[in-house]
């Protein structure tokens, strides 16, 4: 493992409001170029900790180093312009067009209007929006689109650091999944230092290279990779927070690629009286006798073992449906095969040969 530089370091940071300690002696090093997720129940100080980085909240005592420099060394507004910030509700300026919204920070930094605009148009593409959005106003966007613009605006600061405060919690689950995927895709090319706040453990596991689990009272209960946290929760609090689906979540890290796929046109249909309805190559529910029953979740080939297991468990016939990226049916998964794969994963994990 290579030695990582730290982009941000919290050193004995406290934040109190009167007698109320919100952040209690925070010591944390956030590695450069990685996604670090702050996760925890509400009121645990995770958002406060994030906001202390760009001094939207001033801490009571301690030090925060940003790229090695004390973050109180320069005026707060300069510090804020030097890092991207994505808010929960996008927080776009309703009276500015999308392109002007994205240009906000470059314009504050004195970049010419023309240059800021051409950069903003590029960023629209980067976050997967068409250039036709440029002249629209925020009120004309859906929640997911607004959040994409929020991300584009944060990227426009061209800083290496991106602060994201529960950015996907206000959109519906389908859009959220899209945005999460998009963020990972972006990060694979951009390699920024991202600090991401969420209360959703699944989101933390999906996005985080590192996860800091915050406990009530503003202390960090555990810091590590998602796998480490799921494998060895540091204490009862973390164990209860990563919670009841721990076994399932573990499967997120295992590939479902080696589960055999049974072709649809196999000689005998081992799934007996169940028939998969296929329309235009896409699955369209299961037929039994004269009834058609909507299908379960689909397993996209190459996905995780967790997805594979879910496709089997949610399928009315007990057979998981495998599709490709375009949604075309590739075949079926047998529950026994999936369970065998989880068995292999378990043995692998502890280095025991079968």
């Amino acid at each position: 493992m290579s030695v990582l530089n730290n982009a941000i370091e919290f050193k004995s940071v406290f934040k109190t409001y009167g007698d109320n300690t919100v952040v209690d002696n925070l010591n944390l090093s956030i590695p450069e170029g990685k996604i670090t997720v702050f996760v925890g129940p509400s009121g645990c100080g995770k958002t406060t900790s994030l906001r202390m980085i760009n001094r939207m909240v001033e801490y009571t005592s301690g030090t925060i180093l940003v790229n090695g420099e004390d973050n109180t060394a320069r005026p707060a507004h300069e510090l804020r312009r030097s890092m991207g910030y994505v808010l929960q509700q996008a927080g776009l300026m309703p009276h500015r067009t999308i392109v002007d919204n994205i240009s906000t920070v470059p314009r504050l930094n004195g970049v010419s209007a023309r240059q800021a605009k051409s950069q903003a148009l590029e960023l629209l593409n980067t976050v997967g929006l068409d250039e036709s959005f440029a002249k629209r106003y925020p009120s004309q966007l859906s929640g997911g689109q607004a959040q994409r613009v929020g991300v584009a605006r944060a990227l426009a600061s061209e800083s290496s650091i991106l602060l994201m405060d529960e950015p996907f919690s206000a959109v519906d689950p389908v859009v959220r999944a899209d945005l999460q995927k998009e963020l990972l895709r972006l990060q694979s090319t951009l390699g920024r230092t991202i600090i991401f706040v969420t209360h959703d453990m699944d989101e933390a596991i999906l996005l985080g290279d590192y996860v800091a689990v915050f406990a009530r009272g503003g202390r960090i209960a555990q810091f590590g990779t998602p796998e480490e946290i799921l494998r060895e929760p540091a204490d009862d609090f973390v164990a209860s927070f990563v919670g009841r689906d721990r076994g399932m979540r573990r499967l997120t890290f295992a590939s479902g690629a080696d589960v055999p796929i049974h072709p649809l046109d196999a000689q005998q249909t081992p799934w007996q009286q169940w028939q998969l309805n296929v329309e235009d190559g896409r699955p369209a529910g299961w037929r039994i006798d004269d009834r058609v029953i909507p299908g379960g979740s689909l397993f996209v080939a190459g996905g995780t073992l967790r997805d594979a297991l879910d496709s089997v468990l949610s399928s009315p016939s007990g057979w998981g449906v495998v599709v490709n990226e375009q949604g075309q049916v590739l075949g079926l998964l047998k529950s026994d095969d999936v369970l065998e794969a989880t068995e292999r994963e378990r043995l692998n994990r502890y280095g025991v040969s079968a």
Partner: protein
Amino acid sequence: MNWLQSNLQHVGELTALHLLQSIIPVIIGTIIAVPIARFAMGRRRDGRSTERTTSAGKLRRGLVINSAALLYTIPSLALFVLMPLVLGTSITSLLNVYVALTLYVIAMMVRSAVDAFDSVSPVTLEAATAMGYRTTRRFWAVELPLAVPVMIAGLRVALVSNISMVSVGAVIGIQSLGTLFTDGLRRDLPAEIITGIVATVLLALVLDRLLALLGSFLTRWRTA
């Protein structure tokens, strides 16, 4: 009709005077009222905190809004008569009207402007700060433009009520469309009185419409 035709020039002059006495106080009054209102709001707390003002802030806000309301309760005629004493002007000076009506506009607009600043989403302001806006620039670039819709609504009420109030000056001899009422009454000329009423209403309608247009121009982002 005959009366109007033979007095067209006179009516025109009075309309111009009326226009001047309506618009100038609205402009000056608004320019004074907006900073007062912003001051009354105090320093807005950013972020998720819903507790936006301290108890001192609440007191200040209540004080400003109530004094403005109190100002509005002074009868306009009394204010017109009082002005020469305070300002040392002659009783028929236009300045009396300007100052008196400006006070009324301030009384009305302070309240509207406070509501207008209140209507600006704290999330937006917080976002602006997080992007790196400093307080002054944030006020001009974000807070004020976003307060415009509610402010324009208040401004339309202030302008229309101001147009009707200008007429009162005629009682103490200040020339405006109101002069047509006092003069028509004295000389028993219904045509003159009716002309005065129609002209005042027309003036109010036209100015209100223009202000509404200005408002929708400034707030294209809302209807887009």
